[in-house]
């Protein structure tokens, strides 16, 4: 398994509070991603990073921010949590290799409940 650790694995928080989820990788991969999974929606990209301090928005970025100060860590922050952000969050990593294309490897997920 790819060395990806998400923390915490479970969290319950109150509406309006800030929350930070952490993704840590030991693979030295260049690209890191945050997805959320919701019933009926599959996996949707929130933000991604293509290098240290290089990040960009995905398709559902409103209400989220990210930071990547080191290759191995990618943080996702919910600035003011809302009930609509109750979801399972997955971090993923990928890298350049000999092939043009490569698959992404996923962490175990963080289940976040906003009450």
């Amino acid at each position, binding site marked *: 398994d790819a060395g*990806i650790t998400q923390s915490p694995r479970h969290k319950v928080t109150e509406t309006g509070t800030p929350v930070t989820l952490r993704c840590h990788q030991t693979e030295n991969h*260049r*690209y890191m*991603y945050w*997805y959320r999974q919701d019933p*009926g*929606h*599959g*996996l*949707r*990209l929130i933000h*991604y990073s*293509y290098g240290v301090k290089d990040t*960009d928005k995905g398709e559902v970025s409103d209400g989220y921010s990210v930071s990547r100060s080191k290759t191995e860590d990618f943080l996702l922050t919910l600035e003011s949590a809302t009930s609509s952000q109750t979801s399972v969050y*997955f971090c*993923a*990593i*990928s*890298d*350049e290799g000999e092939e*043009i*294309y*490569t*698959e*992404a*490897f*996923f*962490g*175990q*997920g963080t289940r976040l409940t906003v009450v």
Partner: protein
Amino acid sequence: DQQVKQNSPSLSVQEGRISILNCDYTNSMFDYFLWYKKYPAEGPTFLISISSIKDKNEDGRFTVFLNKSAKHLSLHIVPSQPGDSAVYFCAASYRGSTLGRLYFGRGTQLTVWP
């Protein structure tokens, strides 16, 4: 707007028979396609992929077929086993997008019964 579509939310198959999971896409720029399998409380795991220069890729019991003209791909599992019961996500990517940036379908829950 969903660029990758899995129109069957669930599929039930008897053990030993073939499972066929379908996926359609709308973006003609997509040229790399993947299938992921996901068990409850775990992250998705990569299963098999195919690039647009091929129309078939096989790996053991798993075969992916790509029909570019129809913008359709399918995953065949033969023979199906109870351990294959999981949610299967179809995903797509294209040259020029961020490497590894994937567009996912909504998933199909496969149940293989004895």
